[in-house]
C-alpha cells in the first residue's frame, strides 16, 4: 500500500538532521578557502603547524595502543578468568568514565606537578579513555560462545593460537570501534592537553580563537583537524574488515568456562589495582582533598547551585534535541532500510567525528555572519550539542526500535487499536528503556562538555564545566573542586548504565 509514501516526511526530517550535521563542514571549509591558496599554504606550511601535527600524532600513536592493551587485558581478566571479585572490578574499571578527563588532568597536575607535557598528556588520556575499549571488549568477551575456541583446541591448536584464531577476529569490531573512539576523543581533547601544557591542533584552535575570534586562521587549523578526523573514520572502516564475525542464529549459547589464573592471580589483581588507583583513586582522592579545603559556603553563595541547575537545564535540552534529531534516522533505518537511509545514517555519524571546538567555531562563524538572530542564544549551543551527540542518541534509539518490531504494531492495529493508541500502548513502552539510556548518555555528555560551550555559551550562562575551567586555569584548585565533584556526582549514573550494557549485551 502506501509503504513508499509513508516515510517521506520522516525521510525529509532525517535529511534535515543530516544536513545539520554537515553544517560545520560547510562553514569551516569555505571560511578556510576564502584566504586563498597562497596564504593558506603560507600559514599551514610552517614549522609550528608541523609541530602541532607531530604532537597530535605522538599522542595518538601512544594512547591508542595503550588503551587497547589495557582495555582488552582488563576485559579478558574480568570476563573470561576466575578473577576474584569480578563484578566489583567490572564496576571499578568502568568508573573512570564518570570522571571527565579534564578533571582527571587537574588531579594529576596537583598530585604530580612535574608530570606535564607529553608524558602527562599520554598518561591522563590513556587512563581516561581505556574504558572506551574495555566496554565493548568486555561485552563481546562475555557473550562470546566458547564453542569455536574449544573446537579449535580439539583440532590441535595451542590455547594461545586458539584465542588468536577464534577470539581475536570476533573482537575486531569492538577493538576498531574502541580505537576509533579513543582517536576521535584525542583529536578533540582540549582540557587535558591545555592543563598538561601539551599543544595540539585543538589547543591551537582555541588559542587562535582567543587572539582572532572567528578568523580564517582558526578555520584553516580546523580544516586540518577535520581531515584527521575523517581519516580516522576511514581507517576504522578499513580496520573493521568485511568478514562476517557473528553467528547466524543464536544457537544454544553458554558461558565460557573461566580460565583459572593460578599463580597469575596475584599479578592480575595487582595490575587491576594499579589501574584503578591511577584512573580512579587519584582523581577522586584529589578532588576530595581539595574539596575539604574549599569554601563550600562561599561557593554555594556564589552560585554553585545556580550553575548546577543551568548545567542540568542545558543537559536536558541538549538530550531532548539530540534524541529528537536522531529519531527520524533511527526510524528509517529500522523500518525502511535503503541505500539512501544508510547514507543518511553515515552522514549523521560524521557528527561523532567532529571535535567540539570545530562545531563551536563553525556555529559562531555561521551565526555572527549569516544567522544573527540565533547568535549568542541557548538555541545555538543546543544545536551544537545536537550535532555532537546525535550518534549517541541514535545508537540507543535503534536498539529501542529493534525491541519493538513492526509486527507487534501490526498485531495491535489488527486488534482494533488506532495509530496513536498503538504508539502509546505498544511502541513507546517497549522503546522507553533504550530511549532513556540514549537520553541520559547525551545529557551526561552535555553536562561535561567544555570546548563548544566555551565558544558558544550565551551571555550570562554558566555551566559546571565552564566554572571548573575558570578556576582550574587560574590554578585555584580548591575553588575548582566543588564543580569537579558535582560533575562526577552527576556522571555516576553513566557508569551504572554502561555496566548494565555489558551485562545485557548479547
Amino acid at each position, binding site marked *: 500500500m502506501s509503504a513508499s509514501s*509513508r516515510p517521506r516526511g520522516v525521510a525529509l526530517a532525517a535529511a534535515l538532521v543530516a544536513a545539520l550535521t554537515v553544517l560545520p563542514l560547510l562553514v569551516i571549509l569555505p571560511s578556510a578557502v576564502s584566504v586563498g591558496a597562497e596564504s593558506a599554504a603560507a600559514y599551514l606550511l610552517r614549522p609550528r603547524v608541523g609541530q602541532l601535527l607531530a604532537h597530535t600524532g605522538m599522542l595518538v600513536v601512544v594512547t591508542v595502543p595503550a588503551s587497547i592493551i589495557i582495555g582488552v587485558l582488563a576485559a579478558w581478566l574480568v570476563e573470561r578468568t576466575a578473577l576474584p571479585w569480578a563484578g566489583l572490578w567490572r564496576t571499578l574499571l568502568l568508573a573512570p568514565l564518570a570522571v571527565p578527563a579534564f578533571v582527571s588532568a587537574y588531579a594529576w597536575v596537583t598530585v604530580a606537578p612535574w608530570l606535564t607535557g607529553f608524558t602527562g598528556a599520554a598518561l591522563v588520556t590513556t587512563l581516561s579513555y581505556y574504558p572506551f575499549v574495555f566496554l565493548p571488549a568486555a561485552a563481546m568477551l562475555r557473550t562470546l560462545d566458547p564453542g569455536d575456541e574449544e573446537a579449535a583446541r580439539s583440532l590441535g591448536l595451542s590455547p594461545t593460537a586458539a584465542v588468536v584464531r577464534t577470539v581475536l577476529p570476533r573482537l575486531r569490531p569492538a577493538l576498531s570501534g574502541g580505537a576509533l573512539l579513543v582517536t576521535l576523543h584525542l583529536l578533540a581533547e582540549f582540557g587535558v592537553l591545555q592543563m598538561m*601544557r601539551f599543544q595540539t591542533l585543538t589547543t591551537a584552535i582555541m588559542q587562535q580563537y582567543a587572539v582572532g575570534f572567528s578568523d580564517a586562521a582558526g578555520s584553516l587549523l580546523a580544516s586540518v583537524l577535520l581531515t584527521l578526523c575523517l581519516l580516522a573514520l576511514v581507517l576504522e572502516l578499513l580496520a573493521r574488515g568485511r568478514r562476517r564475525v557473528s553467528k547466524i542464529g543464536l544457537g544454544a549459547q553458554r558461558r565460557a568456562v573461566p580460565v583459572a589464573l593460578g599463580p597469575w592471580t596475584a599479578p592480575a589483581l595487582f595490575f587491576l589495582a594499579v589501574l584503578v588507583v591511577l584512573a580512579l583513586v587519584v582523581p577522586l582522592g584529589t578532588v576530595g582533598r581539595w574539596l575539604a579545603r574549599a569554601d563550600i559556603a562561599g561557593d554555594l553563595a556564589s552560585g554553585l547551585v545556580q550553575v548546577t541547575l543551568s548545567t542540568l*537545564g542545558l543537559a536536558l535540552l541538549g538530550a531532548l534535541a539530540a534524541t529528537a534529531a536522531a529519531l527520524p534516522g533511527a526510524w528509517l533505518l529500522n523500518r525502511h532500510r535503503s541505500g539512501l537511509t544508510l547514507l543518511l545514517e553515515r552522514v549523521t555519524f560524521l557528527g561523532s567525528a567532529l571535535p567540539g571546538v570545530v562545531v563551536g567555531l563553525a556555529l559562531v562563524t555561521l551565526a555572527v555572519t549569516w544567522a*544573527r538572530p540565533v547568535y549568542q542564544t541557548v538555541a545555538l549551543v543546543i544545536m551544537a550539542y545536537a550535532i555532537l551527540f546525535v550518534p549517541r542518541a541514535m545508537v540507543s534509539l535503534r536498539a529501542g526500535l529493534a525491541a519493538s518490531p513492526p509486527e507487534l504494531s501490526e498485531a495491535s492495529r489488527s486488534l482494533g487499536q488506532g495509530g496513536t493508541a498503538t504508539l502509546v500502548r505498544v511502541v513507546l513502552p517497549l522503546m522507553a528503556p533504550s530511549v532513556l539510556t540514549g537520553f541520559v548518555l547525551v545529557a551526561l555528555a552535555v553536562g561535561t562538555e567544555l570546548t563548544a560551550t566555551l565558544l558558544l555559551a550565551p551571555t*550570562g550562562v554558566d555551566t559546571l564545566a565552564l566554572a571548573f575551567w575558570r578556576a582550574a586555569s587560574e590554578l585555584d584548585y580548591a575553588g575548582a573542586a566543588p564543580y569537579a565533584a558535582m560533575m562526577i556526582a552527576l556522571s555516576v549514573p553513566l557508569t551504572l548504565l554502561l555496566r548494565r550494557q555489558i551485562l545485557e549485551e548479547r
Partner: protein
Amino acid sequence: MSKNRHPLIALLLALPLALSACAGGGNSGSQDAYAPQPQTLQIYSSQHVNVTKALAEGFTAKTGIKTQVRDGEDASMGHMIVKEGDASPADVFLTENSPAMTVVERAGRLAPVQPATLAQAREGLAPSSGLWTPIAARSTVLVYNKDKISEADLPKSMMDLADPKWAGKWGAAPGGADFQAIVAGMLAERGEQQTRSWLEALTKNAKVYNNNIATMKAVNAGEVPVGIMYHYYWYRDQAGDKQGSANTALHFFGGGDPGAFVSLSAGGVLASSDMPEQAQQFLAYVTGPEGQRVMVDSGSMEYAIGKGVPSDPALPPLDSLQAPAVDASRLNSDDVISLMTDVGIL
C-alpha cells in the same frame, strides 16, 4: 496509516518551541539571564570577572540601570565586536589591555568618550585619540625565586632574556593577551627588528605557561628561576595565603625598559550602542572616584588611574615605576599577533 508519523513530526516541530520556552523561562527577571535584554546595559568585558561584576553591581546600585556582563578574552572579544558590527549587542567594552580596544578603535566602532570622563584619569595616560579611557593599569614585572637566583644576578633589562645564557631559565605566557600587550609596547618602542629577534629567542629559551598565575607558581616551585608577568597576581597571592608566591620576590626593571611597560586596561563606548547615554554614564562611574574605589576594594591589586584615588598601599606608586613612554594609541595587537605567528609562537 499516516497517523503513525504525527507524533514524530510533532515532537520535531515542538522542539524549537520547547527551546524558546526554556530560554524565555530563564530570562524572566534575573540579571544572569540568557539572551541580551532590552533596556539592560550590555557590558562586554575581558577584564577580570570579579572586578567587572563589582563595577556593574556598584553602577546598578547607584543608578538603577540594569547591566549584563559578557565575559571574554581581550583580542577575541575585540575582534568579536568588530565582526558583530552595527548589530553588536555591546554598549560598553572593558578590556584587560588596551590593544584589544585599539582593534575596535581602528575599525571605527567607538564613540568619543565624554571629555569630563577623560578628565577623571591622571594626566598623560589617556590615548591621544580620546576614543577610549584608561580604567586601570598594570605593570610588567620579573618574578624570581629567591632560593634559585640572587637579586644581583637578575637581568638588567627584559631584552637580556634573549641571551643564550638564559636558555631554559625563564617562564612566560606568550599565548595570553597580557604578554602580547608587553610585546606591543616593545614593538612600538624598539621596532620590529629587535622585537622579532627577542621573540625568536623566546621560542628557544623560555618555558611556556598558560597564563601569568601558572608562570608565577612555576617560579615559586623552582621550575624556572624567573618569569615575566604582571605585578598584581603576585600582590594578590601575597595578600592571600601566599601559596603561589612565598618563595618569590618581584623585580621592577624601571629605567624605561620594555620590561617596565605599564599596560592600561581600557573602557570604551560602542558607536552602535542603543543606550549611549547610560554607557557614557557607566564609563564616568568606572573612572570616577566611586568606581575606582570599588576596583581597588575588590582586591584586584591593579593600579587605580583616577585622579586622587590611591591604589592599594602594598603597591609601589605608579609614578615611581619609570615605565617606557609609549602612546597607547600606537599599540597594535594585530601586528604583534602576526609577528608571533611568523616566529611560530602562535
